[in-house]
């Protein structure tokens, strides 16, 4: 039977210090144009923690508001704060930068991350008060280092500074003197990913209502690479994060595919569960420092806040079919193959129309589509348009071309079968998966029957191929009862049959005696 979606988590960490110091746009600017107006103006455009919490799309991401409610908010969103919004949501939370730095230390098992004594003392209890941070995790925070030592590591030893409220409060040291794969910048990037991954895992276990010991396999689908000079990208963020989260019965591995990674990982996880290899699998993705402030130049130029100030993370728990939760239908898989080509029509055809047609379904048979759910507040001012809307236009146009949708219904297709984008531009994070938490709830509540999750990836960015990539799958209402009815034998009937057989066997034994 198909694997089910037992629960999902969505977390953010508001990290304005990392926007300045670790975003690739800012790093590049410091190299090519260190005196630029952009670098001077950026700090004034950074949001406070409270502003990030009151930001509508962030509240949708952590589950306090729905995409439908966001659709009712007048665009743009950045100047419409949600009064009374809080840090915690049903899917996760928005962690402040200071606490996230402490969580990074919890994730550091090689003592490369130092935090200043006073900073640790000021924030240790805040992290410990987090509902998913257990005592064993909080106990990993160290007493702290002297400010002078941290300064020396940054100035003389190539360490990467850690900042809170504009002040140097810690550093990540290089893990090797020569190996660039273990330099301070890479170690920082990887520890950020591992820490946000850990937080997502912790919330997912809580939200799914399972025990940590239930998780047997973890698949990480982020876009970072860890390894040394002999195996750059050797990996296993999955197992590394599972260790900190305390998933003692889990092993795991990493799956990569740029922004399509999460959808590939979901299909792999659903297949592992359906095959019976593992009963409970977690698909997890952590945040990406490089993409912080990626479109910052356009935001600053237009007088907007630097909206890419949050790291994102997510995790989905898949288990054996429980007869209740929505399931991943592995019969309906969309795939962009080597031969598909890159024309938008071919891409959407391979991911949407083809898998549906193979199963005798029409495009309009899917209630909701979740392609790339980037927040248009971020992308439109930067000239990248409204990405989810562009996807819906293409799907609708294809439906019309195939005679599955009336031309007059083109304009309403997006509102009926689509969603408004609400996810941060963290690469793999917005790609299809942000809706899985809501889709599970909407299917359980009977609001929708099914949803198609579509992930797309820009493989050409790695300069290994010019190919594009994509994969899609369908989540649907649980069909266990239907399947049992069709097979003509229910679980209780099977039990009865086994009991009868045992009785007969016992009777034979008795007769022999």
């Amino acid at each position, binding site marked *: 039977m198909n694997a089910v979606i037992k629960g999902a988590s969505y977390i953010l960490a508001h990290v304005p210090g990392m926007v300045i110091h670790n975003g690739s746009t800012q790093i590049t600017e410091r190299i090519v144009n260190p005196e630029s107006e952009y670098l001077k103006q950026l700090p004034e455009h950074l949001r406070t923690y409270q502003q990030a919490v009151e930001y509508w799309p962030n509240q949708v991401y952590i589950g306090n508001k729905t995409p439908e409610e966001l659709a009712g908010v007048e665009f743009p969103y950045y100047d419409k704060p949600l009064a009374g919004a809080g840090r915690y949501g049903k899917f996760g939370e928005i962690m402040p930068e200071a606490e996230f730095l402490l969580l990074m230390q919890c994730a550091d098992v090689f003592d490369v991350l130092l935090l200043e004594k006073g900073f640790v003392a000021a924030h240790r209890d805040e992290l410990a008060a987090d509902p998913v941070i257990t005592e064993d995790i909080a106990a990993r925070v160290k007493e702290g280092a002297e400010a002078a030592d941290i300064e020396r590591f940054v100035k003389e030893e190539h360490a990467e500074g850690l900042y809170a409220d504009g002040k140097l409060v810690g550093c990540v040291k290089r893990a090797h003197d020569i190996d660039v794969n273990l330099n301070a910048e890479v170690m920082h990037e990887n520890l950020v990913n591992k820490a946000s991954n850990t937080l997502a895992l912790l919330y997912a276990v809580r939200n799914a209502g399972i025990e940590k010991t239930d998780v047997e396999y973890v698949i990480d689908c982020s876009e970072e690479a860890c390894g040394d000079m002999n195996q750059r990208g050797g990996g296993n963020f999955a197992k590394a994060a599972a260790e900190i989260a305390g998933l003692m019965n889990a092993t795991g591995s990493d799956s990569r595919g740029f922004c399509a990674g999460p959808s590939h990982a979901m299909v792999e996880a659903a297949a592992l569960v359906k095959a019976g290899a593992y009963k409970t699998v977690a698909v997890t993705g952590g945040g990406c420092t490089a993409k912080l402030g*990626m479109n910052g130049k356009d935001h600053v130029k237009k007088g907007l806040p630097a909206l890419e100030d949050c790291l994102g993370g997510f995790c989905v728990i898949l288990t054996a079919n429980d007869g209740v939760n929505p399931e991943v239908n592995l019969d309906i898989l969309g795939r962009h193959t080597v031969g598909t080509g*890159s*024309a*938008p029509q071919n891409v959407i055809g391979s991911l949407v129309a083809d898998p549906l047609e193979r199963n005798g379904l029409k495009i309009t048979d899917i209630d909701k589509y979740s392609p*790339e759910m980037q927040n248009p507040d971020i992308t439109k001012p*930067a000239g990248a348009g409204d990405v989810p809307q562009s996807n819906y236009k293409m799907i609708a146009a294809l439906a019309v071309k195939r005679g599955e949708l009336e031309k007059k219904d083109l304009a309403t297709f997006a509102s009926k079968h689509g969603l408004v984008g609400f996810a941060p*531009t963290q690469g793999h994070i917005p790609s299809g998966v942000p809706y899985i938490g809501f889709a599970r709830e909407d299917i359980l509540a009977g609001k929708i029957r099914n949803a198609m999750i579509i992930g797309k990836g*820009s493989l050409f960015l790695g300069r290994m191929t*010019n190919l*594009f990539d994509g994969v899609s799958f369908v989540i649907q209402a649980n069909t266990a009862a239907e399947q049992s009815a069709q097979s003509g034998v229910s679980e209780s009937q099977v039990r009865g049959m086994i009991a009868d057989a045992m009785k007969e066997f016992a009777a034979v034994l008795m007769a022999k005696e």
Partner: protein
Amino acid sequence: MAILKDKKVVIIGDRDGIPGPAIAACVESAGGEVVFSSTECFV
């Protein structure tokens, strides 16, 4: 499409719009010569 015939063309495609290879296919069919093609991602 005669405007592209025998012209040298530089293509900057957008991953969420029209990607480079798709534009290149159009240019070549219109008799143009692609001297550079790249697809960028902003999300």
